C-alpha cells in the first residue's frame, strides 16, 4: 500500500475508535468495565502501526519524491478557492504522526489503570481518541483548510478534556480559559492563511510553498503581507504552544486528569505550534522579521517559565512550567533555522515529559488526589519505581548526558550559536534556562521523594494506600463526591498497576536512549530523515564549528550537574535555606509566585474592558438604542401611523363625503394648473 493510504488509515483508526466508544459504550461496559479503554488503546496502536507502514513505504521512495499529497474529495472549488480534503505525507508529517501515535498509545495504556473506577471512563477514552484524531489531522493536513480544521478540533478536544471533571468549578473555568486563548490563536491562523492565500491563490500547502519560492510575494525579504501572515501564524503558534503572552492557560489546564496533561499539554497539542513553524519554513525564511519575533518570544518564555517554576508548589504546575520552558526552546530552535534540532527536541521532550507527568500521576495517586509539594515528602521507599522514573525524566529534562534531553537541547543551542550576531543573547538565555530547569526539576524531586516520609508515605510503606476521608478539590478544598463529574474514588499508583508500569517503562527507555540517534558529528538520523521536507531551506545545513560544539557539550553537562547540586544543597542538605533565600529575595519571590502577574495583566487589559463593554452593550446600548429606539421606535411609528389611519375609517358618512369632494377638488385643481 502506498504511503498516502497509510496516511488515511492513520486518520481512520482513531476516528473509528472514537465512534465505537461513543456509540457503543453500553455494550462495551457490559463486556467489561475497562473495555472502552482497551478499544481506545487498540485504535491508537493500530494507528501507530499504520504510521510505521507509512514510514517504511515513504523510505522506499527516492528522497526527492518523498512529498506525497492525496486528496479524498473535493470539498469546494469556487471563486478561486480550491478546498479539498487532502493530506500531505512527507518526512515531517510522518515524523510527527509517529511521535503522536507512539506517545498516545502509551498514554492510553497508562490511562486504563489511572482512570479505572471513574464514572466517565468511556467518555474519557472517546475524548482522548477524538483528540488524537484531531492532532493527526492537523499534522497530516495537506492544505490550509484541514490545518485550520485540525487546529480547531484540537482546541475543542483540549477544552473537553481539561474540564473532564465537569462538576469541579475550577476545572470548567480552566477549560474555558484554555479555549478562549486558543481561539485567539485560531483567529491568527485564519487571518494568516488569508494573507498567504492573497498572494499564492491556493490553499494547498505544497503549491503554496512552490508559489512563494517562485516569487508570489515579490523577490525581496520581509515583504509586508508575508511578514503579516507569518506573524499571525506565530500568534497561532504561541497560543497553542503556550508562549508568552498567551501562556496563561497552560498551568490552569492541569485541572484535567494527569494522563491528559501528559498527552495534550506535554507531548502533542502544545507542540503543534512548533510543527506549524517548521511546516511553514518556506514562508518564514522569506520573512526573517517574523523569525526573529519567534526566536525572541521563545527565549523569553523559556526564561520566564523557568523562573516561575522555582516558586510553584503544585507538582503538576511545576512540570507544566517546565513544558512551557522546553517548548520555548523548540520555538526558538525552529525560528532560528534549527529545524531538525527543534523537532528532535520535540521527540525527546515528548518522552521524558510524558514520563514525568505519568510519574507525577502515580505520586498524586499515592496522596489520594493531593497535588501540593508542601504536603509531600519521603516517598523514596514507598514508591521506588515512580522514583526511578522521576529521576530518569528529571535527568533527561535537565540535560545531563547521556540522557536524551542533553543531545537535543544542545543541538538547538549549537545552531543558535552558529547563527551568530545577536543570537548569542539567545544562546546565553538558553543555557541560563537550562540551569533554572535543572534547579526546579530537582527541587521537585527532592521535595517529593527525600526527607521525612509524610503520613501517606508511611501508610503506603506499610501496605495500605492512603484514601482521603472526604474527597475534595485539591486546590480549593471544596467538598466533592465520587459520582460522575468528579474523580472516582480509585487512585492508582504505578507500583500496583501493570499497564502504568509498562507505559512508564517504555517511556523511560526512550528518555534514556532516544538521544543516541542524533549525536553531533556521529549520526544524523533525524536530520537525514527530515531533509526532503526542508530541501529548499537555506538554513537547514549549518556548518558546525568544532570549537563551538565542544564548548556547547561541556557547558551543557556542567550546567546540568550544577543545577542538580544547587537543588541538593538547598532542599536536602540545608532544609532552612530555602526559606531564608525566600525571605531575602522577597519581591523576586512574589513576582515568581504570582507568575509574573500575567493573569492580572490580562485581566486588567482584556477581561475587564471586555466585561465593561459587554455590560455597557447590555444595559445601555441594547436597552436604549435597540429596544427603545429601533424596536420601540418602529413599533411606535407603526402604532402612531395606524392610529392616524384608523381615524380615517371612522364610519362618519359625511367625513367620507368630504374626502370625496376634497379629492375631486384636488384633481380638478391639478388639471386646472395643467392648462
Amino acid at each position: 500500500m502506498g504511503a498516502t493510504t497509510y496516511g488515511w488509515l492513520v486518520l481512520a483508526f482513531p476516528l473509528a475508535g472514537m465512534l465505537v466508544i461513543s456509540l457503543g459504550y453500553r455494550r462495551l461496559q457490559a463486556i467489561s468495565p475497562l473495555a472502552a479503554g482497551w478499544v481506545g488503546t487498540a485504535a491508537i496502536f493500530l494507528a501507530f502501526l499504520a504510521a510505521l507502514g507509512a514510514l517504511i513505504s515513504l523510505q522506499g521512495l527516492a528522497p526527492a519524491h518523498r512529498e506525497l499529497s492525496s486528496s479524498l474529495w473535493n470539498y469546494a472549488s469556487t471563486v478561486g478557492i480550491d478546498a479539498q480534503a487532502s493530506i500531505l505525507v512527507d518526512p515531517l508529517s510522518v515524523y510527527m504522526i509517529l511521535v503522536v501515535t507512539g506517545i498516545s498509545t502509551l498514554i492510553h495504556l497508562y490511562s486504563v489503570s489511572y482512570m479505572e473506577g471513574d464514572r466517565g471512563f468511556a467518555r474519557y477514552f472517546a475524548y482522548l481518541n477524538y483528540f488524537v484524531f484531531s492532532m493527526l489531522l492537523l499534522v497530516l493536513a495537506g492544505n490550509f483548510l484541514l490545518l485550520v480544521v485540525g487546529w480547531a478540533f484540537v482546541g475543542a478536544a483540549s477544552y473537553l478534556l481539561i474540564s473532564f471533571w465537569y462538576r469541579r468549578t475550577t476545572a470548567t473555568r480552566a477549560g474555558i480559559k484554555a479555549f478562549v486563548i486558543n481561539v485567539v490563536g485560531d483567529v491568527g491562523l485564519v487571518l494568516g492563511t488569508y494573507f498567504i492565500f492573497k498572494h499564492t491563490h491556493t490553499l494547498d500547502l505544497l503549491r503554496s510553498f512552490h508559489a512563494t519560492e517562485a516569487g508570489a510575494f515579490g523577490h525581496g525579504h520581509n515583504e509586508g503581507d508575508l511578514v503579516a501572515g507569518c506573524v499571525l501564524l506565530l500568534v497561532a503558534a504561541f497560543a497553542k504552544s503556550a508562549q508568552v503572552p498567551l501562556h496563561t492557560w497552560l498551568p490552569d489546564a492541569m485541572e484535567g486528569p494527569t494522563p491528559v496533561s501528559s498527552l495534550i499539554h506535554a507531548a502533542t497539542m502544545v507542540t503543534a505550534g512548533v510543527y506549524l513553524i517548521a511546516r511553514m519554513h518556506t514562508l518564514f525564511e522569506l520573512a526573517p522579521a517574523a523569525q526573529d519575533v519567534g526566536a525572541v518570544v521563545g527565549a523569553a518564555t523559556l526564561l520566564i517559565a523557568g523562573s516561575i517554576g522555582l516558586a510553584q508548589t503544585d507538582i503538576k504546575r511545576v512540570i507544566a512550567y517546565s513544558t512551557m520552558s522546553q517548548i520555548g526552546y523548540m520555538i526558538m530552535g525552529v525560528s532560528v533555522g534549527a529545524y531538525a534540532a527543534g523537532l528532535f527536541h520535540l521527540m525527546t521532550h515528548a518522552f521524558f515529559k510524558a514520563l514525568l507527568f505519568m510519574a507525577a500521576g502515580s505520586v498524586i495517586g499515592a496522596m489520594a488526589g493531593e497535588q501540593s509539594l508542601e504536603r509531600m515528602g519521603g516517598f523514596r521507599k514507598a514508591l521506588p519505581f515512580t522514583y526511578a522514573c522521576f529521576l530518569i525524566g528529571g535527568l533527561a529534562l535537565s540535560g545531563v548526558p547521556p540522557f536524551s534531553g542533553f543531545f537535543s537541547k544542545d543541538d538547538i543551542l549549537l545552531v543558535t550559536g552558529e547563527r551568530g550576531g545577536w543570537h548569542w543573547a539567545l544562546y546565553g538565555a538558553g543555557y541560563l534556562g537550562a540551569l533554572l530547569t535543572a534547579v526546579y526539576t530537582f527541587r521537585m524531586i527532592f521535595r517529593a521523594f527525600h526527607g521525612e516520609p509524610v503520613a501517606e508515605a508511611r501508610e503506603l510503606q506499610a501496605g495500605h494506600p492512603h484514601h482521603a476521608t472526604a474527597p475534595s478539590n485539591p486546590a480549593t478544598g471544596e467538598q466533592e463526591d465520587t459520582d460522575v463529574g468528579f474523580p472516582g474514588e480509585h487512585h492508582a499508583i504505578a507500583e500496583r498497576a501493570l499497564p502504568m508500569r509498562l507505559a512508564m517503562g517504555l517511556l523511560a527507555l526512550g528518555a534514556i536512549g532516544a538521544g543516541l540517534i542524533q549525536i553531533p558529528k556521529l549520526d544524523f538520523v533525524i536530520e537525514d530523515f527530515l531533509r526532503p521536507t526542508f530541501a529548499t531551506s537555506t538554513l537547514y545545513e549549518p556548518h558546525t564549528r568544532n570549537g563551538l560544539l565542544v564548548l556547547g557539550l561541556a557547558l551543557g553537562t556542567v550546567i546540568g550537574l550544577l543545577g542538580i547540586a544547587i537543588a541538593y544543597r538547598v532542599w536536602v542538605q540545608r532544609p532552612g535555606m530555602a526559606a531564608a533565600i525566600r525571605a531575602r529575595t522577597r519581591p523576586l519571590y512574589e513576582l515568581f509566585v504570582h507568575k509574573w502577574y500575567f493573569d492580572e495583566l490580562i485581566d486588567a487589559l482584556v477581561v475587564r474592558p471586555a466585561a465593561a463593554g459587554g455590560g455597557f452593550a447590555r444595559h445601555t446600548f441594547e436597552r436604549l438604542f435597540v429596544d427603545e429606539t429601533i424596536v420601540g421606535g418602529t413599533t411606535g411609528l407603526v402604532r402612531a401611523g395606524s392610529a392616524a389611519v384608523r381615524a380615517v375609517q371612522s364610519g362618519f358618512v359625511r367625513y367620507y363625503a368630504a374626502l370625496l369632494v376634497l379629492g375631486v377638488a384636488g384633481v380638478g385643481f391639478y388639471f386646472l394648473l395643467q392648462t
Partner: protein
Amino acid sequence: MSIAWYLAVSAIVFALGAVGVMVRRNPLVVLLCLELMLNGANLALVAFSRMWGNGDGQILALIVMTVAACEVCIGLGMIVAIYRRHLPIDVDELRELQG
C-alpha cells in the same frame, strides 16, 4: 342666454348639493342633496345637448333621472328599515356596521 350661463347655474347647484351632503345630518336630507347634485349634472347635460344640437345629452339626462329614481327608492327603503329598528336617524350615529 348663452350656454355659459346655464353651465354656471349648473355649477352652483352642484356645489350646493355637495355642501349639503357634507353638512346635513339627517339622511333624508342628505339624499335630497344628492338629488340636487344629480340635477345640476342634468342641467349641464341638457345645456351641452343644446350646444351641439343633437340629442345625446338629453338621452343621458333621461337615464340619469332613471338612475336617480332607483337610487332614491333603495335609499328611502333603507331609511325606513333603519327607522323600523329604532335606530337614530342621524348619519353621525350610524357609523358602525352592525349585524
